[in-house]
């Protein structure tokens, strides 16, 4: 089925000239898409707005999709070759991040980085430590391996409780430090994070800290900085990044880890030469093009997201519903309604919001941010769902 999203993006690229000159475009793909326009307009009112997976609603954009298409090669044969662009992506990233290629490992999404780090840094006697809730990939993987997982609660502002986290880190294999933290959207400032890392290493020198900066580009905090400089100096700190969020490439599966060469080597040793065998050629070229857009792209995407975030947070605040201090492309909001009830109510009206996140599923919901247009339509649905149930939101 051709979705509205597909239509907009494919035609968008085509109309701008990206597809028309190509051998694929020449076969009239755009023409057939335009023919479908009336049907799509009719379907538009019914289409689902996906606000459940913290994706970038705009996708990767024209520059990246053009690069994907160029990666087919002039005769369309290049996808038949094993990709040899990993070196190029590593070079591009190392320039962009001001690190050396040996500080980088590539992954099939940051998923691969998280799993690999969890694999090499935890043991049956060396636990994984994280907050509850947080992004669950590391904990799920550790549990599968039969490695202990220690979870600590958040503080009252839904931030990572650094005291509790530090206490729990004693003797641990790895601390999973998701900052900003999914699903609660909060951010711990850079200096507080540096202090936390130093503190953990004072009380537990063998413990590795995996700083997951998946939402790094969306942060608007006054003390915002990456932990990459710390990781470069300290083999017990690894930073994970992804192209799935601000770069809009969740479907392509590309992420990376940054660290001291010793850490990168250790991870690579377990994971088949730093995961390059799992990376598809289109993702590699997409990643190169995405980074090539420079800071301007990131700044524009951050600004777009911030505006949508402010609008959405305000809508809830105006109705007495409190959100955490979001530095991501989603919000965590107290609707005063069971998350499941709210979710089902929204789904019935074509808006898909986040799943349950215990222990907050009684009243809190994670809502990913769509486009401004999507959020305007979404809040109308939220109003109907919350109003219909006659819920007075928790103060």
């Amino acid at each position, binding site marked *: 089925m051709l979705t509205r999203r597909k239509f907009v993006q494919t035609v968008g690229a085509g109309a701008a000239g990206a597809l028309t000159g190509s051998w694929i475009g020449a076969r009239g793909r755009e023409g057939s898409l335009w023919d479908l326009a009336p049907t799509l307009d009719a379907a538009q009112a019914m289409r689902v707005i996906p606000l459940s997976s913290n994706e970038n609603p705009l996708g990767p954009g024209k520059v990246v999709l053009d690069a994907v298409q160029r990666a087919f090669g002039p005769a369309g044969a290049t*996808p038949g070759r094993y990709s040899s662009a990993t070196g190029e992506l590593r070079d591009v990233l190392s320039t962009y991040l001001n690190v050396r290629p040996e500080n980088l490992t590539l992954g099939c999404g940051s998923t691969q980085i998280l799993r690999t780090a969890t694999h090499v840094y935890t043991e049956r006697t060396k636990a994984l430590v994280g907050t509850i809730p947080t992004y669950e990939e590391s904990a799920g993987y550790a549990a599968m391996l039969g490695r202990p997982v220690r979870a600590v609660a958040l503080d009252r502002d839904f931030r990572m409780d650094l005291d509790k986290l530090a206490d729990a880190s004693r003797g641990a294999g790895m601390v999973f430090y998701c900052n900003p933290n999914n699903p609660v959207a909060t951010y711990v400032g850079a200096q507080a994070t540096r202090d936390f890392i130093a503190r953990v290493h004072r009380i537990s020198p063998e413990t590795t800290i995996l700083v997951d900066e998946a939402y790094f580009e969306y942060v608007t905090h006054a003390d915002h900085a990456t932990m990459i400089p710390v990781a470069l100096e300290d083999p017990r700190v690894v930073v994970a990044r992804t192209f799935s969020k601000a770069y809009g490439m969740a479907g392509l599966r590309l992420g990376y880890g940054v660290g001291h060469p010793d850490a990168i080597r250790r991870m690579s040793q377990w994971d088949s030469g730093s995961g390059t065998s799992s990376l598809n050629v289109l993702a590699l070229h997409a990643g190169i093009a995405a980074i090539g857009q420079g800071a301007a792209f990131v700044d524009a995407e951050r600004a777009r997201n911030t505006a949508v975030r402010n609008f959405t947070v305000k809508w809830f605040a105006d109705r007495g519903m409190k959100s955490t201090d979001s530095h991501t492309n989603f919000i965590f909001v107290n609707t005063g309604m069971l998350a499941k009830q709210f979710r089902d109510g929204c789904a019935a009206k074509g808006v898909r919001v986040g799943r349950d996140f215990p222990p907050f599923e009684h009243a809190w919901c994670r809502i990913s941010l769509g486009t401004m247009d999507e959020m305007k339509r979404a809040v109308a649905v939220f109003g109907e769902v919350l109003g219909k149930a006659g819920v007075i939101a928790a103060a």
Partner: protein
Amino acid sequence: MSVTRRGLLTMFGAGGAGAWGGPVDGLALAARGLEDESAALWQGGGRRGGAPAAAGDQPPAIKLSSNENPTGPGKAVLDAIVGQFGEAGRYPFNADPGEGKLVETIAALHRVKTNNVVLGAGSQEILKNAVWAFTNPSRHLVTASPTFENATNVARRMGHPVVEFNVDSQFRIDLEAMLTAVRGAGLVFVNNPNNPTATVHGGKTIADFVERVRRISPETVILIDEAYHEYVTDPAYETAMPIALSTPNVFVARTFSKAYGMAGMRIGYAVGSADTIKPLERLRMPFSISVFGVVAAIAALGDVKHLDAERARNTEVRAFTQKALEDLGCRCTASHTNFLFANVGRAASQFRSACAAQGILVGRDFPPFEGSHARISLGTMEEMQKATAVFRDVLRPANAAGGGIE
């Protein structure tokens, strides 16, 4: 090891990147885990073509080193990818079609249930997870030498014991020898056809082997890697799929990297009984196949004509190339793949360097045959016409000097 399914380390380093006269030995780079860097070097600063950049006025090199399909996946697949551009920003579990649709398509193709199928980021992920799931420090891997080394390398890296058996006098996997070591083994790896020797075992031979392994060591898992399945022309050959489905502890791996022309997309799968597949599914990295990979694979499976044409194309190129080599006195093994294993009568490294100097990149060393045999992947007919001219040039002086190919 990183790199490529089946061809690995072939890339021979900086040779193409501006040092045509003095290629770096790629094996040395590869051994240090730097295959990507070597690849990037010959790739020459961002070129996107399949062939490496050439220095100066040199034409692009012809890459016959990684057993790839030189024609790529075909228009149906590329169209499917472009048609999915709008889903690029969505996680594979949110995209339409999702990964489940690919599993259903594969299951329908083989007339099995979806729980008989597991996907992987290339069949490498399958092989890695099989070694991880089924071997341990006291349950060894039984494999051949030379064969596709991925499983061997993974086992060694994990510290799990490996028992290897040289191929037989006809360069076929020595199943009889392997049987002597299967008792108590965790995993037996059979690459059929076998990379790099290109030979294949018939269906009955494989069935007998499986039965005997089962008798000796019923707990041992048998992985039959059919990466080159689509290229086989031996009438005695049969896929082991039916055996895998009817026999506990047996499964078959397949890939989209060879005949389907999608090595760059990283998609493979395995089929077996649900109980055998379950541990592989459990270890699988979630959503390792991109939204483009999902639609590409579905489109590829639907384009039967393209696959038939690819098989015919390869068979023709194989016959042409084999004849050219044998006319030069280079005996080839009986190939049922998209590459040849040829006795070039000299060190593979010498042959490789001489070919590379003329823009033809052939396979790496494959011990214990590195003193005499080269693995030559098959390009297009046009590429092989050029390549065989180079082979003639490279091999003739030695022959003329009586340097000796038997």
